[in-house]
């Protein structure tokens, strides 16, 4: 009975093919260092899920942002857990993505035919940092406020375009409700969409080319 259903679905969806390509593909001799990409992806999914849950109570407005987070931490059942995972997961994700990048660099895995995978990986690293930067403002506490003041001020030092970039980031010359709202939008829609898209191509390329061997002494 289950077999009939499974076979019917498999003929149309190709489970087995997917399984072979995703989970049963040939690998070179691997170490724990090869798991960092998957770990980063796991964290991204975790951040996505906990982030969705946080938006149930969080309000991106200067009047309510801080109070709504206080409420998540103290008023809602397990709010501390959901936000805690999101908070620490963010830090861990930046670290893991960076160590993953170092691993690929030191094992020279970025060479032909994987240059594109590497370039897209840079995009993934930058969007991950973008997630961290935009998420940092959302609690709307002193640290968040001044970190974003400084961060956007640094972006404002770009020659010629600086003032425009600063205003575009802040939604005006100073930090305001507009800044919080656009950082929120970037944090939950724009950057994650970019990141997920890049991740899809990154994964496709990894499945297409397979993982690289670690170089030997002869290399």
């Amino acid at each position: 009975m289950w077999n009939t259903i499974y076979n019917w679905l498999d003929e149309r969806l190709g489970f087995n093919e997917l399984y072979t390509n995703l989970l049963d593909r040939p690998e070179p001799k691997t170490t724990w260092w090869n798991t960092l990409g998957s770990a980063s992806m796991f964290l991204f999914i975790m951040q996505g899920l906990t982030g969705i849950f946080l938006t149930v109570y969080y309000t991106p407005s200067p009047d309510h942002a801080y109070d709504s987070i206080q409420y998540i931490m103290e008023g809602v059942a397990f709010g501390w857990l959901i936000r805690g995972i999101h908070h620490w997961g963010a830090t861990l994700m930046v670290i893991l993505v960076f160590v993953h990048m170092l691993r690929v660099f030191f094992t020279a895995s970025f060479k032909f035919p994987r240059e594109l995978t590497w370039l897209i990986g840079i995009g993934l690293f930058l969007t991950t940092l973008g997630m961290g930067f935009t998420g940092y403002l959302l609690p709307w506490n002193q640290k968040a406020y001044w970190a974003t003041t400084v961060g956007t001020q640094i972006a404002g030092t770009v020659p010629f375009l600086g003032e425009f970039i600063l205003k575009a980031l802040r939604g005006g010359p100073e930090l305001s409700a507009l800044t919080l709202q656009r950082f929120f939008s970037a944090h939950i829609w724009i950057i994650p969409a970019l990141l997920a898209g890049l991740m899809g191509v990154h994964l496709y390329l990894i499945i297409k080319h397979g993982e690289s061997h670690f170089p030997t002494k002869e290399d």
Partner: protein
Amino acid sequence: MSGSHELSRRDFIKVTTGIVGGLIGAVVGLPAIFYLIDPALQEGGKEAWIPIGKFEDMQVGVPYPFSFTRVQVNGWERTASSFGGYAIRKSDSPDDLLVLNSRCTHLACTVNWHAESDAYICPCHDAKFSMEGEVLDGPPPRALDIYEEHRLTDDGLIEIFFKEG
């Protein structure tokens, strides 16, 4: 490995991954459910006597409108919710008073007294109730709700007993 009952390396990994994954899923998933439904589990139900007007201002046979707001803490915000109704005095006795809740029994819009129609009319779905709150027309399943408990204070005020939903 000879015996088929022995766990192969692959199967061991599969089983371990399943167990660890399931554990992580449960540790995060179950709290997440409680996190979502938490507001529905909160106990409300504060009670109070609320003054709705002077007894002498209420005329016999004319619905006397009243309204009041209750401030509730919802999450991180204090929200004022409006309630209201009509007091209908039937005789000189303060006990002979009918206090109706103006919340329509159909889908909770607020009904208004229309003297020219001699009825409470709900703007949402054209429900009509008589002065005593009986259904005259429209979709409501039952008559308007009544504030059962009310009393006359020494200052001549009518107070109703109100319990938050």
